[in-house]
């Protein structure tokens, strides 16, 4: 009681002091709340849009859905390139209780290599548990069947089907068709957004040329996913537009005939419809199976192909550069008549060689003894060189060049297969430009028989022969004749493209040349008379034998002892039927030596396959 008095006095002061501190605390609380509220206003009102965007980016992602690639059909509707399901064995770790037991169990059903298991275990550590991980790629049908039957024993094990490009005819027509492969880094740079999600692209041939049509347009799926990336639902779905189907003019039956006729030789066959420009066959042998290229060919297998002396990867039909040899003679002969230098009755006495004035050099005929008195018809039929030496000299290089240009020599044809060569149609200007040298008269002589600087591709020979057969009407060679948006929809045809017309001075000159070429096949003395036997239609043709190896003056060409790759190339150009040309065929057999004996029979087989 005695100090309660003091305390009571203190108590009043304390109460007042405490009261003021409570008010102070209240103000403090209020101020702190104000800070929090202004922070909330900043975040939720002033920065609302910014954070809404961030929040959307968190949850919504866009997945691309690649379009299925268009199919490729041959002339008769056979599928040359298709998309087959490829089966992959996949495991979803979060659905599997014991991974080891499951792996062991699976090994009891199908063969799984140690490297597959190793790769799978590595992936297991790096990925989220709900993500499906591949264990084995490219299961065969038997493996799929075995797994499917036992799938109930393996929860969390899945067989995933993907579409993979497949070429059912393997190497048949591969150089025209081409193939797809995985997109590489260089290609990636040039690609549009349409390729988001696409893994493969046309690498060569039709697959590359019509890439845009075959590819289609990518689709999108807007999905909502959670923080762990699991897809929760699809918000928006825009399906892809599938690639267009392509229909080729190639006839697989004729193509097969061409390839089997070439057998194990190195060479090329190009068959074209002169009236429409349709490529019926485009063969380059040896070929290769494009299927391993689709998913990346093994290094060893690739080296074997790339390093082979036979160069199977090389498309001889459009890229091959060969001297045309005597197959040039019909064009030079026609030039002689059209420029009024020779007539059907003009004769040249062939002694087996000619000499230019002021020169010791002898320009020899392939027949050492000579052909004697020879007309143009005879010179074509028997392939007399001396006649054309003489004609060449009279025409001069300028006119030979000018006339042959009409037949597209020295230029690309515009075929819808990438990579064709333009060859060389020599001229004064060309020699000046490339070699910086003047043109010599002797060069005109050998140009007239298709040797010297002349370079052609098999495609150019077939195209040129077709133009001749078509009496000068040039139509762009092409392999694709129609596209189709989807199966069972109408075909959209490509219009044949007329590239020009060769000006005809006298139609009888052309008739004369056709008649001469017909004699090559259908006469006793024709160089290709062997294929004229038992033939139900009329063929016009011209044989050629092109020198690969320059033999010295007066040296004899020793067939027996020459190394194989130095032997002459065998060539043959032709078309049939003569009255109504439907197929023009150019054949080149590398080191085949005999145009009439080796190349011509191949052309005959191709024509038979198409016409009969």
């Amino acid at each position, binding site marked *: 009681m005695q100090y309660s008095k003091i305390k009571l006095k203190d108590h009043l002061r304390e109460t007042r002091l405490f*009261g003021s*501190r*409570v008010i102070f605390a209240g103000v*403090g609380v209020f101020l702190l709340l104000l800070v*929090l*509220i202004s*922070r909330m206003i900043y*975040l939720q009102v002033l920065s609302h849009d910014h954070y*809404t965007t961030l929040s959307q980016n*968190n949850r919504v992602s866009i997945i691309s859905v690649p379009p299925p690639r268009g199919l490729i059909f041959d002339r008769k509707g056979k599928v040359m390139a298709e998309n087959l399901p490829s089966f992959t064995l996949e495991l979803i770790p979060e659905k599997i209780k014991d991974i080891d037991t499951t792996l062991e169990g699976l090994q009891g059903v199908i063969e799984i290599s140690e490297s597959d298991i190793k790769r799978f275990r590595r992936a297991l550590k790096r990925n989220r548990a709900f993500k499906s991980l591949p264990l084995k790629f490219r299961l065969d049908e038997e493996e799929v069947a075995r797994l499917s039957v036992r799938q109930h024993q393996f929860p969390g094990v899945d067989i995933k089907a993907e579409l993979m490009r497949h070429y059912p005819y393997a190497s048949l027509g591969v150089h025209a068709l081409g193939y797809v492969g995985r997109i590489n880094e260089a290609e990636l740079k040039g690609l549009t957004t349409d390729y988001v999600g696409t893994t493969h692209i046309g690498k060569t041939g039709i697959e590359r040329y019509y890439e845009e049509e075959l590819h289609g347009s990518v689709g999108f799926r807007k999905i909502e996913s959670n923080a762990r990336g699991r897809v929760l639902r699809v918000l928006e779905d825009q399906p892809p537009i599938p690639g267009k189907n392509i229909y080729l003019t190639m006839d697989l039956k004729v193509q097969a005939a061409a390839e089997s006729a070439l057998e194990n030789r190195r060479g090329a066959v190009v068959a074209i419809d002169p009236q429409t420009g349709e490529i019926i066959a485009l063969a380059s042998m040896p070929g290769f199976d494009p299927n391993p290229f689709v998913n990346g060919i093994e290094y060893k297998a690739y080296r074997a192909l790339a390093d082979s002396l036979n160069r199977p990867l090389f498309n001889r039909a459009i890229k091959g550069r060969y001297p045309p040899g005597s197959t040039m003679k019909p064009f030079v002969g026609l030039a002689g008549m059209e420029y009024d230098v020779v007539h059907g009755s003009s004769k040249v006495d062939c002694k087996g060689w000619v000499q230019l004035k002021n020169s010791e050099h002898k320009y020899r005929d392939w027949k050492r003894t000579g052909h004697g008195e020879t007309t143009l018809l005879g010179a074509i039929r028997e392939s007399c060189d001396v006649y054309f030496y003489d004609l060449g000299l009279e025409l001069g290089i300028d006119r030979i060049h000018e006339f042959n240009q009409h037949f597209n020599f020295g230029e690309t044809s515009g075929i819808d297969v990438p990579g064709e060569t333009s060859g060389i149609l020599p001229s004064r200007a060309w020699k000046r430009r490339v070699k910086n040298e003047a043109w010599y008269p002797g060069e005109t002589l050998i140009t007239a028989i298709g040797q010297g600087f002349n370079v052609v591709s098999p495609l150019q020979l077939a195209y040129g022969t077709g133009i001749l057969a078509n009496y000068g009407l040039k139509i762009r060679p092409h392999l694709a004749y129609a596209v189709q948006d989807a199966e069972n929809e109408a075909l959209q045809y490509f219009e044949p493209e007329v590239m020009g017309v060769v000006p005809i001075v006298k139609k009888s000159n052309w008739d004369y040349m056709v008649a001469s070429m017909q004699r090559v096949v259908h006469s006793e003395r024709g160089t290709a008379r062997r294929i004229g036997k038992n033939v139900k239609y009329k063929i016009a043709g011209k044989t050629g034998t092109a020198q690969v190896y320059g033999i010295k003056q007066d040296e004899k060409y020793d067939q027996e002892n020459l190394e194989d790759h130095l032997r002459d190339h065998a060539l043959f150009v032709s078309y049939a039927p003569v009255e109504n040309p439907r197929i023009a065929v150019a054949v080149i057999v590398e080191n085949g030596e005999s145009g009439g004996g080796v190349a011509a029979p191949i052309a005959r087989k191709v024509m038979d396959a198409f016409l009969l």
Partner: protein
Amino acid sequence: MAQSRLSVGLENTPQQGSSGFLRDLHIDWPLMTGLIALSIFGLIVLYSASGENWSTVSRQMIWMSIAFLIMFFVAQIPPHHIQFWTPWVFGFGVLLLVGVLLFGEVGKGAQRWLNLGFFRVQPSEIMKFACPMMVAWYMAEKSLPPPMSRILIALLILAIPVALIAKQPDLGTSILVASAGIFVLLFTGISWFLIGSFAVTVAAAAPVVWFYYMHDYQRQRVLTFLNPESDPLGSGYHIIQSKIAIGSGGLYGKGWLNGTQSQLDFLPERSTDFIFAVFAEEFGLVGVLVLLSLYLYIVIRGLIIAHQAQSTFARLLAGSLVLTFMVYIVVNIGMVSGLLPVVGVPLPLVSYGGTSMVTLMIAFGMLMSIQTHRKLLTS
């Protein structure tokens, strides 16, 4: 006790007019109403934050019931009994803290739990109310405002548990405990000059604490707080994602159960420390204002109780407990919204977790005891 019962009828309290039975329960109904409203609010948010997980919500409800029950029991103890037992509670708490340091269980890189065989306790939680009790007890012994010597002794008393908790390490709790003790001193009426010098001292001590007392993970938290984008996938991830959640909520929110940040798991710790972000995302600024009003109501009611308290000990304790409650709110919302570094402080009565709720309700039980055991003073 007999005296207090006699005086009940004479009390000038808000529950005047309510029945005698309810008055005998020693419950402050205005405060009780606020707490119940907040609890219901919290359960609704937790249901969404837990991903509509009923078992989490029901476990929280069980903890809530226990906490309210404990609050009810504490409310029955008259303030002078609380005052009497204060040194014992404090001493027991310090012993437990020492025990934690010697035998404690390690969890999440810190040693906070003490296993008593049948029961696991977190002694630092006890200190949240034992510390202000102790300082108030010490200050109430002599007349106020206290002389310098007594302030220093009080700070020394406070320093023991704060240091022990900081050593665990538990920065968040040690700050809360320290501020609870300091609030008592503020209410004793010490001069503004002293408060100012104290603030300067703390500011000067900050670098020392940074270099000698803070753990790497604590420093990392502060650095991350200063620039969360420096480590968006690591420790900055929490703050970035919670700011996105709050900001994208906008004025009216995305709607209950529709917060994409929280429902799709972008927000970490969403049912515990970061639950406010879930709330702000789904209920927007409007919801935030409602929640803050509710907190403000409870705080103001607490301050009124402190103001009306009759003994020095009671008013110091009440004032400190209310302000500590406010600190919980400010620190939690401040850290979730990126104003303060991330320290593990739950949002009172909303965050999932039983221990901190029990502690909180013990404090509210004391407030109710202080309010309902008053005697009418003759003027």
